[in-house]
């Protein structure tokens, strides 16, 4: 097979779709007004803002008035958590989250613990990455003001029992935020049915532009603003609106909604083919995450005896773009907290590879990966002193 460029890092970010960019373009130089202005230049863009809000709302079956635009998933997570925490600190100071949250949630919780007097429970997950509802219930105290549990995990793709969590939260009168960044546009989401109170979203994971996101805030839910100032977003999130970005997010949401079934179907097939192929072709390999509760586009493997960055570099040399939860890619000492939480050892976790699929991937891409990945893993193992021990029988699978 000829050298190709195979992007399989859609969970990190996605390209902006052509229709999305086309929808955005008028809002840079022609329709550039400030949506708060009453003159023609301002009025011209106000409608576009409303339409985008409708589209994002429709994708998750929310009311348009419950969608608040932000600058991305991280801001939305920070807003939801700090906003609820600060608004309810008279009621209690306890927050429940999980060990496998995105850093936007995790570091926010740690910050509230360290500097603002909150206490946080980090729920365990099982080896597939799912929380235990029982542990959740047992963690609730009369000081608990917020539960923040991600919809789907960005590394291993595990989907949580959101509806059941929401039920527990509701029963106890506790607000429930879910980080929906990876779930959005990849599985069916109906916030009314699920009954969540807050949900963070990000545009650049669904083929929209970067630097735009939204927070779903159920009608009546109170939280402090994260960004104070002007009267934008019904006085809840200040800052001149990023109209072009928001229009792009709206268009991306529309496309995601219209194509959702097809998208899920296609990615699920490619994913299953990739998983099957990798596990068959490469020994000493494990699939991380769940088979049942898994995002359609997510695959995550651990290849024993090798390290993630060297794997990524080698893949990059043949045009394949993936990502790794290895410490060496992130500049931090420890490998992925998610892989640790599902019970992997450091050694094994260092050899992880996430290949996340998206709309532009084809069967040929998967074949290409299945051709190159085994050779690359084999080469790196042949350099590895850990593998040497195995092949000589001196080690029982590390």
């Amino acid at each position, binding site marked *: 097979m000829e050298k190709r460029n195979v992007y399989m890092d859609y969970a990190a970010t996605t390209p902006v779709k052509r229709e999305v960019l086309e929808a955005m373009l008028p809002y840079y130089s022609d329709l550039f007004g400030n949506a708060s202005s009453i003159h023609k230049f301002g009025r011209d863009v106000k409608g576009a803002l409303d339409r985008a809000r409708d589209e994002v709302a429709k994708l998750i079956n929310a009311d348009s008035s419950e969608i608040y635009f932000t600058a991305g998933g991280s801001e939305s997570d920070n807003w939801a958590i700090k906003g609820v925490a600060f608004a309810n600190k008279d009621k209690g100071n306890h927050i429940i989250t999980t060990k496998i949250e995105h850093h936007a949630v995790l570091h926010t919780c740690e910050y509230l613990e360290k500097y603002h007097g909150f206490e946080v429970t980090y729920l365990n997950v099982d080896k597939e990455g799912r929380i235990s509802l029982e542990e959740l219930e047992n963690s609730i105290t009369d000081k608990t003001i917020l539960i923040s549990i991600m919809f789907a995990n960005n590394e291993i793709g595990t989907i949580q029992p959101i509806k059941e969590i929401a039920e527990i939260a509701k029963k106890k009168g506790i607000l429930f935020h879910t980080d929906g960044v990876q779930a959005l546009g990849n599985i069916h989401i109906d916030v009314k049915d699920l009954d969540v109170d807050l949900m963070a979203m990000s545009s650049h994971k669904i083929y929209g532009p970067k630097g735009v996101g939204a927070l779903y805030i159920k009608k009546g839910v109170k939280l402090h603003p994260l960004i104070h100032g002007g009267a934008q977003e019904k006085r809840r999130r200040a800052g001149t609106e990023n109209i072009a970005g928001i229009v792009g997010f709206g268009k991306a949401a529309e496309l995601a909604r219209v194509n959702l079934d097809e998208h899920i179907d296609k990615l699920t097939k490619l994913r299953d083919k990739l998983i099957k192929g990798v596990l068959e072709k490469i020994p000493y390999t494990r699939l991380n995450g769940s088979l049942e509760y898994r995002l359609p586009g997510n695959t995550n493997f651990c290849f024993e*005896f*090798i*390290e*993630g*960055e*060297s794997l990524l*570099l*080698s893949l990059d*040399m043949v045009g394949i773009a993936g990502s790794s939860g*290895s*410490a*060496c*890619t992130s*500049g*931090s*000492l420890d*490998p992925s907290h998610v892989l640790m939480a599902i019970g992997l050892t*450091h*050694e094994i976790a*260092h050899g992880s590879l996430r290949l996340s699929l998206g709309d532009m991937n084809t069967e040929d891409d998967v074949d290409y990966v299945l051709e190159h990945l085994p050779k690359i893993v084999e080469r790196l193992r*042949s*350099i*590895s*002193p*850990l593998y*040497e021990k195995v092949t000589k029988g001196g080690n029982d699978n*590390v």
Partner: protein
Amino acid sequence: MYSEKVMDHFMNPRNVGEIENADGIGEVGNAKCGDIMKIYLKIEDNIIKDVKFKTFGCGSAIATSSMATEMIMGKSVEEALKLTNKAVAEALDGLPAVKMHCSVLAEQAVKSAIIDYAKKNNIHIDGLEDVKIDDEHDHHHVEEE
């Protein structure tokens, strides 16, 4: 991110392998931190006649091991002991700041192989007493400002 030299030594590492009945073997790093380097030395008349390595680690860990073996091949033990991590990094046209620890590891792998050689043969080598192998190297920890 990496120089061409680093990529070359990563993709085509020199001196990969093991030496049976090596005169000195050094292993540094640990799997927990994500890098292990193992260096094998064949020494005759105080000269490094052959050197091989195996590395578990990131691209620059492999490249620095490869470069280090090249740099000590054919040298006397005393010369090899003088190999510094800076020299390895420079020979690779530099390393990213967060990857400098890999060159430290390469330097230490060479040194610990020589220590092993000295021990096995019960010989004294000038300068060896100053060498410290720090296994719990606290690498690339970035301070939050």
